[in-house]
C-alpha cells in the first residue's frame, strides 16, 4: 500500500488549489486532514508537503474561497484551524473543475489519437 517516495508525484501549482477546494466539499477540515484525504484517495500517488499545502491554504483564504476558523474538533477535544468552503469558493471550484476536465481530455486526445492514420 505504502509506495516508495520515488513513485509519488509532486503536484503542479494550481492543481493543489483545486484539490483542496474539492476536498472541502465534503465538509470542514484542518490542513493535515486535507493532506491526508488527498493522499489516501490517490492511494498515496500524490504527496502533499506542508511547504506547498499551507501557502496554498492561505492563498485560498486570502482570495475568500475558503474560510479558516479555530475550532474544537469533533472527535478530539483540542482546537485546530478548520477550513470550510465559501460560496465564492464553490463557484470557483465548479469553473476550475470544468476547465481542468477540458484540459485533461485535450491532452488525452493528443496522446492517444482515436484512429491511427
Amino acid at each position, binding site marked *: 500500500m505504502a509506495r516508495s517516495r520515488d513513485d509519488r508525484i509532486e503536484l503542479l501549482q494550481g492543481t493543489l488549489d483545486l484539490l483542496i477546494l474539492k476536498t472541502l466539499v465534503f465538509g470542514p477540515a*484542518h*490542513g*493535515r486532514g486535507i*493532506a491526508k484525504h488527498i493522499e489516501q484517495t490517490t492511494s498515496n500517488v500524490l504527496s502533499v*508537503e*506542508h*511547504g506547498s499545502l*499551507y*501557502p496554498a*491554504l*492561505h*492563498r485560498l483564504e*486570502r482570495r*475568500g474561497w475558503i*474560510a*479558516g476558523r479555530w475550532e474544537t474538533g469533533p472527535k478530539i477535544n483540542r482546537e*485546530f*484551524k478548520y477550513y470550510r468552503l465559501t460560496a465564492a469558493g464553490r463557484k470557483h471550484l465548479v469553473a476550475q473543475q470544468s476547465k481542468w476536465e477540458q484540459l485533461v481530455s485535450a491532452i488525452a486526445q493528443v496522446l492517444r489519437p482515436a484512429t491511427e492514420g
Partner: protein
Amino acid sequence: MFSRLLSRTRPPTDDEIARELRDHLELDAEELAERGAGDDARFAAQRRFGNVSLTIEATRDEWGELRWRRLAQDLGTDIAYGIKRLRHAPGFALLTVLTTAIGVGATTAIFSVVNAVVLRPIPVADADRVVAFYETNPTNNAWTTSDPNFLDYRERTRSFATMAAVAGRSAGGFAAVALLLAVIGLFGVVSFTVQERVPELGVRLAFGATPHRIVRLVMRDAGTVVAIGAVIGCVSAVLLSRFLSSMLFATATTDPPTYIAVVFVLLASAAVASYLPARRAGRVDPLVAMRER
C-alpha cells in the same frame, strides 16, 4: 459588504501559522506512536517534514501587503486603547502625557540649541590653539561675560590672536537637569498609576491571567500613554527650539538623534517604572491584590 471584506482578509499572525504547522506535526507524531513506530521512524518522519520556518515564511508571504495593514491596525488599536484609558483615568494619564511632553519638549529644545551653539566645533583654523576663558565674580559667582567687557577684552588682548564670544553655555546644564527631572517625574507618575491598578490586576489574575500577561498589559498601556506624550513633546520641541534659537541668534537645526535619545531615555524610564510594580502585582495572591486599596 465592507465588514465582510475586512473579516475575510484579516491576515494571521506568525504565531497562528506556526500553531497550524505544530498541530500538523503533532498529529503526525501521535499517529506514528500509535502505530508503534520507534524513535528512528519518528525522527525520519520529522526530517522528511522539511523546513518548517521556510513554510511559515512562504505562507506569510501569501498575504503580501495585507500583513502590514494588520500591523498598522494593531498599532491603531493600541493607540485607541490608550486614548480610552486616558478618558477612564484622565488625571493620571493626562499627568503622564504632560510629564512626557514637557520632558521631551524642554529637554530636546534646550539640547538642540546647546548642540548648535556650543557642542558643535567652532569653525576656526588651528583648533588646538583655541582656549576658553570665563569671568568669575566673587559676589554672585556669575560666569557670563557682558558684551562691553568682551569687546574690551578683544580690543586689549596681547596673549590671544583673536577672541570670540560663545553664548548659551549654561543651557547644557539646564538640558541635563530637565531630562533628569522628566525621568524622575515620569517614573513616579507611571509607577503610581500601576500601583493604583493593583486591585484590577488582581481580578485579572483571579480569572486566570498569567503574570507574564499582566506585565505585558501594564507595559503596553504605559508605553502607549508615554508615546502619545512623546509625540506631543516632539512637536512642541521643534517649535520651541526654533523660537529659542531665534532669541539666541543661533541656527538650531532640528537634531533627530537628540529627539531619539531623549524619547528613548523617557520610554526606558517608563518601561522600568511600569515593569517593577507590574511584576510585583503579578506575583501576589489575587485575593490580596483585590483587597488592596
